[in-house]
């Protein structure tokens, strides 16, 4: 507890120092406010825009959560199906490789044309970008687990289903969580980018309007907001994985 407080204070001082340097540099170098706004201006904008920002954020958050949950479910189905049948795996792998070669930022306009300005194209974009890392890592984890524990499954006379349930899935959990870690922030950025291209609501809309109005303070506000949100997600996932992987040596030292 004591060390936690010290760490927190140290971070607070670091962040405060950074902000101070930021505003100091601006005033010394005579940078005009519309090019780089000082931190107090960004803070004032945050106060001013709180309700607007939270409305846009809620929209983005909903798309993000739906898309990410969908990705997780889809990735689990895909990796388990591929794991249990070499035939499916061959085809799934081919599909996954192709799906990674598509530059999604360029597909986004097409999705908008097809599915309109609502949340559907964003969710589809997340599914396209985030299913792959989770599925790929989970599948690799399952294969490693089988290589390691198939002899044990024979010794224990486990049926394939029981081996999957008791041996392979728990053993592949760390890899699944790694995939999730990558996807969580990736999905959020994808959503904002899709909104930037065309949308009715969301942080991307706020961002594009700020850009059109030359409101650098708002742009910076969104960037900082996304950074904070991503850090928060990473923190949450790390907490979750420490809890689920209680048995890992590095979580016990």
């Amino acid at each position: 507890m004591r060390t936690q407080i010290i760490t927190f204070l140290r971070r607070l001082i670091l962040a405060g120092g950074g902000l101070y340097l930021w505003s100091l540099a601006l005033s010394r170098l005579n940078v005009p406010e519309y090019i780089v706004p000082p931190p107090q201006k960004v803070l004032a904008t945050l106060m001013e825009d709180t309700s607007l920002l939270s409305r846009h954020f809620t929209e983005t958050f909903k798309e993000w959560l739906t898309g990410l949950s969908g990705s997780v479910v889809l990735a689990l189905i895909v990796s388990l199906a591929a794991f249990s049948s070499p035939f499916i795996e061959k085809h799934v792998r081919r599909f996954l490789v192709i799906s990674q070669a598509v530059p999604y930022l360029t597909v986004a306009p097409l999705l908008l044309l097809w599915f309109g300005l609502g949340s559907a194209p964003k969710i589809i974009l997340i599914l396209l970008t985030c299913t792959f890392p989770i599925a790929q890592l989970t599948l690799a984890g399952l294969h490693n687990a089988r290589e390691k524990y198939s002899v044990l499954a024979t010794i224990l006379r486990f049926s394939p289903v029981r081996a999957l349930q008791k041996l392979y899935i728990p053993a592949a959990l760390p890899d699944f969580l790694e995939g999730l870690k990558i996807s969580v922030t990736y999905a959020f950025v994808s959503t904002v980018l899709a909104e930037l291209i065309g949308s009715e609501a969301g942080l991307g809309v706020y961002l594009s309007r700020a850009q059109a109005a030359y409101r650098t303070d708002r742009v910076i506000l969104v960037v900082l907001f996304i950074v904070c949100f991503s850090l928060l997600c990473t923190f949450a996932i790390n907490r979750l994985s420490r809890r689920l992987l209680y048995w890992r040596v590095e979580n016990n030292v």
Partner: protein
Amino acid sequence: MISARGLQVALDKKMILSEVSFDSVHGGVAAVMGPSGCGKSTLLKSLMGIHAFDAGELTLNDKKFQAVSWGKSQSFFSLVPQVPLLLPWRTVEQNVALAADLSIPPAAAAAQAQELLHVVGLSDAKNLYPWQVSQGMAARASLARTLMIKSDVLLLDEPFAAIDATTRFKLQCWLLETISNLKIEAFIVTHDPREAVILADEILILGGKPAKVVKKISCPPRLTRRRPEWIFGQEAGELEMQIRDALQQEFNRV
């Protein structure tokens, strides 16, 4: 009781075992020895159904099987693997209880696991995770886990290799006791002539490439071997020398 005739195993198109024939003594312990890499583990794994036989015949308790169709589904053998393979997310006790039959309720399985852990001297470690225990303790837990599984023949693949000499001797005596009480047969792969002398009623020496049984050494009856003055006496020493000589011959041939 096992009778094996002309067993043949090839891995990756390389013949590992060919013409392996042996008869086990009813309720006996056979030590399988031979140069490292000669196929001792392969023989055990094939009996377990992990590798497939390519030819041969197995007679188990008077029932005849074609070795080629010998699959994983049988429950005749149980194996203590070379590495303990404990699951890191389960405690020692949970690892052992995992081997319980599905028909046994969890509470009964836990009780059975605790009993076996007591037998292998791991009662104090039952709530520890595998990374918290020594290699020797892990090996004992693995042994306890396999003993949860009912079978006619226990296969042990160098089960005591990672265990310190004092504990090993205790476990060897205990294993012999257990096997006698359960009236099961055992095949134990070992590099240690001393271990073979203590445990085995019969020693099979594998050699050649591909390997077959090149020599059989019979040991005195268990009642004789159990006496400490025999184990540390001259006769046991001579037997150990005989094993060493036979092994040396095979090593030189490789």
